[in-house]
């Protein structure tokens, strides 16, 4: 770990000193050693605050949509493989210019679930990491300007734990049962929009939920509106969500949002062979079409 931190700090220092960036967004140790928090560094002397470990759960790319951050112009950001895909998508969707971002990729071996970490869990293994880490294909970020290699070994996956197992379970259910399941989940929603705030790709300055001519989503806290909000968010993220899981982590009432996002990612891949966040030059799946697209459901 120390080696990683040294390298991270050296890179950050160099970038700041050479004025290649005006701001670096990274992780730093919080009050609780098993909770890492974000840090914003503008001075080369402050780089010692930067650190990385298996508790760096947050997707820092979320800050890139904030006007306060955008103001800095050239920005350096510390990203894990999954988070880096958000950066790619932001570039793809013109929210970010490749020239204005220095991607400091860190090789990540998986991050420990926050609830376990809070109980003192420190070990990275298949039973302690998030589901997203079990399906992760980007332990090394796909695109980076600087790379900090991991000195940790990869944890072992023996298939005992099935990531997102509930998806298959839901798929196998009857429509009524699925309906029941989601009704119960969405009933809990308090429309706090924390999911939206935590999502690096929910960058609209005026969200559809805030549009009232016409009113797309009922704003009062009742089930229809709740369900509609969650479904529209999932629809807007289809083919875009990069699976960082921040929405679910942010949800104060524990709606399993990743079950929807992951399901849609799988469907989009199955139907269109597209995975989000892979290639900054790729056409987004819903910004293009193929004459031979899936047609079976149409009479």
């Amino acid at each position, binding site marked *: 770990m120390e080696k990683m931190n040294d390298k991270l700090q050296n890179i950050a220092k160099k970038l700041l000193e050479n004025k290649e960036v005006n701001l670096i967004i990274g992780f730093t140790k919080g009050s609780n050693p098993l909770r890492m928090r974000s840090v914003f560094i503008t001075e080369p002397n402050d780089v010692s605050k930067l650190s990385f470990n298996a508790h760096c759960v947050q997707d820092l790319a979320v800050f890139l949509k904030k006007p306060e951050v955008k103001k800095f112009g050239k920005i350096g950001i510390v990203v894990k493989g999954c988070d880096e895909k958000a950066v790619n998508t932001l570039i793809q*969707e*013109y*929210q970010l210019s490749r020239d204005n971002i220095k991607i400091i990729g860190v090789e990540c071996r998986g991050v420990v679930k926050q609830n376990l970490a809070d109980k003192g869990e420190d070990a990275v293994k298949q039973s302690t990491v998030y589901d997203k880490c079990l399906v992760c294909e980007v332990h090394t970020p796909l695109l980076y300007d600087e790379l900090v290699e991991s000195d940790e070994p990869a944890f072992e996956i023996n298939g005992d734990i099935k990531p997102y197992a509930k998806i298959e379970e839901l798929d196998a259910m009857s429509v009524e049962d699925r309906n029941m399941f989601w009704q119960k989940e969405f009933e809990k929603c308090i429309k706090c929009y924390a999911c939206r705030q935590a999502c690096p790709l929910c*960058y*609209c*300055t*005026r*969200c*559809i939920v805030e*549009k009232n*001519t*016409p*009113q*797309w989503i009922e704003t009062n806290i009742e089930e229809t509106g709740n369900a509609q909000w969650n479904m529209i968010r999932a629809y*807007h993220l289809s083919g875009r969500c990069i699976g960082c899981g921040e929405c679910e982590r942010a949800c104060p009432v524990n709606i399993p949002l990743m079950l929807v996002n992951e399901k849609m990612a799988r469907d989009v891949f199955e139907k269109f062979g597209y995975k989000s966040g892979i290639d900054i030059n790729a*056409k*987004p799946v*819903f*910004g*293009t079409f193929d004459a031979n697209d899936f047609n079976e459901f149409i009479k």
Partner: protein
Amino acid sequence: MARIGVFVCWCGSNIAGTVDVKKVAEEAAKIPGVVEAVDYKYMCSDPGQNTLRKMIKEKNLTGVVLAACSPHMHENTFRKAAVKEGLNPYFIEIANIREQVSWVHEDKEKATGKAIDLLKMMVEKVKKNKPIEDVRVPLTKKALVIGGGISGIQAALDIANGGVEVILVEKEPSIGGKMIQLDETFPTLDCSSCIMTPKMVEVYQHPNIKLYTYSELEEVSGYIGNFNVKIKKKARSIVEKDCTGCGDCWNICPMHKNVKSEFNVNLSERTAIYVPFPQAVPLIPVIDRSVCLHFKKGGKCQKCYDACGPKCINFDLQDEIIEEKVGAIVAATGYDLMENSLYGEYGYGKFKDVISGLQFERLLSASGPTEGVVKRPSDGKTPETIVFIQCVGSRDPEKGVPYCSKVCCMYTAKHAKLFAHKVHGSQSYVFYIDIRATSKGYEEFVRGTMENEGAIYLRGRVSKIYEDNGKLIVKGADTLSGNQVEIAADMVVLATGVIPKKGSDKMAQMLGISYDKYGFYTESHPKLRPAESSTAGIYLAGMAQGPRDIPESVVSGSAAASKILGLFSKSEYEVEGTIASVNKTTCVGCFYCKRVCAYSAISKEEIKDRNGNVLKVVANVNSGLCAGCGACVNACFSKSIDLKGYLDEQIFAEIKSLAV
């Protein structure tokens, strides 16, 4: 407050026979906002329209709903009537209670109920309507034609003869395109240059045509009626106005070996300063700087300069950029032939006597390298047996293209025929898969080649060509007899397939028109709008659209011209006002709208503060280009773009009116 008038039409018994029109009117009157609801026997008749107009005026209506026949029948009729009373035409909505109710349902009760529903939907919609102004675009009445082949020439001449100024841009030093390289043309066997050169001269002399040869399109911006184009006029190294085309320069040029003539498809050589062919238009030479000794050897050679009487050679001339403003564009960029070297088994490039169809044209042509005497490139001997292979590259998804190149069947039959005329006692063998000869006189022409000229047609492909003792051994199949045949030929002519001009995809991107996977430009509609591109104001002609023969190319050139003359016959170009518009305050600039727009109607617009700093980049709809399909509206996550006439709010109002 809305003041809606409702008019229920009986359409004689067409509606009233199944729908209780009185009841519909009664119910309509109860809808909030409806100030008047009447029924009438024939709303579209003069008295009907007068009733409508009278009501608009007397009741001061802000919106009108007609429960009548399909809007595709009379929407325009009613809109026009409304306009006469000063009501914006887009405040007329029609509930289709004939095609969708009275004619398709029998149960009067249910039909009446449905009619009331449809009417309510439209009342709710019209309440949300906003006035829409049709967009008027000014027209610059000048046209640009890209490509000086036969279709481009035809388009330019037709437009110019219609009294409109034309700019014709040609990449090569001379206009004439591929057609001027041909010998005689099927099926009438008239000589290509004889019919082509007068047209080329006409272009050159036409007062309405400005010709830029040896020039390329550099940049295109703007939209229908208002395109700004930049043309790069490459340096010819000749002061054109002074040149007389006397030929003293190219006759003295020492570089007369090793540079292959493009016009003769590498069968002869040309000088460094040259005209591509004697009838070139304009008859002004060009210096090929990549081979000219003056440029390669640091200015030592200037023999042409010394020989030039009017002293019009200027080695220092540079490329020039010319800017023009035009109202319409014809893309007639033509085609290329496929690379024969794709077929190692045919030995093109290895065996000198395996040549392409276009090379054979040059061998047949009186202006060609052999002055029209058919000679083998290898040893100059007259061939006695020629094997022609059709579908080389065409209908071959593996190595070539899957489509049919359309002209090869005909030109091969012509080749075999001309060969028989030129070399008595000679023999042609033609390998074909299917014969496609479908225009006027074509089938007769091909039959004539077989029956009167003795060409032997074999149905099958050739697999391999070997060389043996100065003969080309052609190993092919005759699938009709089920045999493998070997023919010892003196020469083999490959009927190479047609592909779009190299760079046509780049050209399409520059013009903002769509093209298919091969690079051929796509028509706005394959049947009904074959002369139009997907972008308003840009028209298509010739082989750039796909394989076609000379008459079809000429027709397409004329079609493009007539479209442009039609466009220019009005003072302004009118676009329906039902187009997209962006809420720039909420637009976040993800440009999904731009990605899905088939018309390139969406561009990026920078929003700046007072000091010129870019605050954000948002979408902007070009009203000249927008066709009003609404795909962009669906693509927008934050709902910051909407389609006039079909606003989200209006659709919601319609849905809401149906709430049960």
